[in-house]
């Protein structure tokens, strides 16, 4: 969905490997800060630091919205894993591109 949404909104493409590889810039506004915040939300490490960095880069409203998205996927990840709902075939290319075993 990341690739589709970027193409539809900006007419450009994004390197999906930026999700898994910290050496690759997501090339989105505040993309580096967003990725760092998502990492901190899951691991619990450097949360204050990454939250403050995103607030400085994009404002506190965006930081709060980003935290909401991360929290939502803490919910959705558990639901999907616990119920075993299969991922749609149309998304299989993403796992292959990122080298994620399924």
């Amino acid at each position: 969905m990341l690739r589709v949404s970027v193409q539809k909104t900006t007419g450009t493409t994004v390197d999906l490997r930026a999700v898994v590889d910290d050496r690759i810039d997501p090339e989105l506004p505040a993309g580096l800060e967003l990725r760092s915040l998502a990492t901190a939300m899951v691991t619990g490490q450097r949360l204050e630091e990454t939250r403050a960095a995103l607030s400085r880069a994009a404002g506190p409203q965006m930081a709060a919205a980003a935290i909401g998205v991360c929290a939502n996927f803490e919910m959705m990840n558990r639901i999907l894993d616990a119920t075993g709902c299969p991922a749609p075939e149309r998304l299989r290319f993403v796992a292959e591109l990122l080298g994620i075993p399924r």
Partner: protein
Amino acid sequence: MSFELADAVLPVPDRVGEELRREWQRLAAPGTWLTGRQRLAVAAEARTARTFADAHSELPEPLIEAAQSVSAAAHLITREWVVDLVARGVTIEQYVEVVGVVSRLAAVDSYLRGIGAQEEPLPEPTPGRPTGEHENRVRWRQAFVPTAPEDGARFALSAVPVEEHARDQLHAVLYLSTEQMADFTYRGVLSRAQMELLAARVSLLNDCFY
């Protein structure tokens, strides 16, 4: 009043605060297959499981195991484990209700931690009996649980429609509504691409197979 969020370091939109309070009411109330007291015990087990402890609740052991597993090790859950859980006395509908309760609690607690607020104490249970309303439209497909009209993220909890609706409500205020999800050009405070970067990163780090 719950969720005053006085110690939050980021602004919390009113609609998010309202939904968090509604979620606490749902958590405390009798569900479809569990009482309010049982739902809160599930929540307590889910919270303590994150620190590899247990809450010493009075729930049957398989329900405790379900709550702890969905909370702290969802990525390790297999079809065989769910089958075994059912063989040990948890109905598949009870399991789906546990998944709903625990997963929404994970979202609430994660959100509070993210905005710098203290963990909200669990509410007192609302007395009453579970409704016991069967959802007759669901069918077994590829998922570990029966669904309707199909397997998929939107319908994963459809065997217990109240849980599906609650997920939908929380999903809409923290991320996107179903209608907004279908619109890839939708933009709120974050662009859709920024949201998907966050979603993909969280899912990767949680080892979510989806």
